[in-house]
């Protein structure tokens, strides 16, 4: 754990520029993760009720 933390510090947080870069990349990943996971939860709860689930019955 200590090795992981010090590697993280040396690679990402030692310079301000890499810290800022890490923040923006982290924000992007965080947003995508939250979006996809909440969408998956919504689709799971509403399975069979949405247009994409019944589409094949009406389109050729």
């Amino acid at each position, binding site marked *: 754990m*200590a090795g992981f*933390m*010090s*590697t*993280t*510090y*040396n690679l*990402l*947080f*030692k310079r301000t520029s890499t*810290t800022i870069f*890490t*923040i*923006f990349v*982290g*924000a992007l990943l*965080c*947003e995508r993760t*939250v979006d996809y996971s909440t969408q998956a939860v919504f689709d799971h709860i509403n399975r069979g009720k949405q247009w994409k689930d019944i589409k094949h019955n009406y389109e050729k």
Partner: protein
Amino acid sequence: MFSVVIKGNTLAPHLKATSYAVGHKAILAAVNASHEGEEHIVSQDFKPIDAHSMRLINGQLKAVSKSVNAIGQVRYAHTDIKIPSFDAYRRESTKDPKKSSLATDADRKAFTYLMTASFAATSAVFAKSVIRGAVSTMAPSKDVLALAKIEVKLDEIPEGKNLTVKWRGKPLFIRHRSAAEIEKERAVDVSSLRHPEPDDQRVKQDKWLIVIGVCTHLGCVPIANQGDFGGYFCPCHGSHYDASGRIRKGPAPLNLEVPPYEFVGDTVVVG
């Protein structure tokens, strides 16, 4: 006659010695209270019996009880007292007192920076969604966007005729050109034009010319199939446009504007 004048300051060192002493049970009780893992500051061998007593521990003077002028105090500055251990409160990496602080630099700072960066990243996501929401309130709504496009059926326009429709508050000319007109406009020498544009840059399909019907001079609406060049003629100041909507004669500086459009089957979608 023999008189002694006793001065206070000659006795002061002797009296003062007793002031650096432990003389009260209550103070000792407080000092002896300690945490697990720490060394006792005052040896636990010491038990104050009563007031007005003197104690020797390991042959050293540790405490003297109250005497007449002395004030009972805990003696703080001793060389024989061990420095208490704070290892219970230290990080693993800093327990070795001989280790340079530079060596443990990354290990000590990483967690703090990780927390800061996580908070900043979360804030960035929230800030982005707030700004996005604020900007999207300025975007046109769906009904406005739907009205911004126009669909025209082309098979209803006979050859050689010009259809005028209203699009975004302006007249739009849709002209079904004959083969003779197409030939004529293609043959024009581009370098001789005031606003040089070849015919194939102004139309997507040779048969159909689609331009905005606003004269580039002062904004009048030109009349179709009039003028010296068989295209459009502006009645306000006499600008002549050809069948490709290019200015050929008169005061207008530019060709008629071509809007963005695309053909879908036998209709044209403008906008």
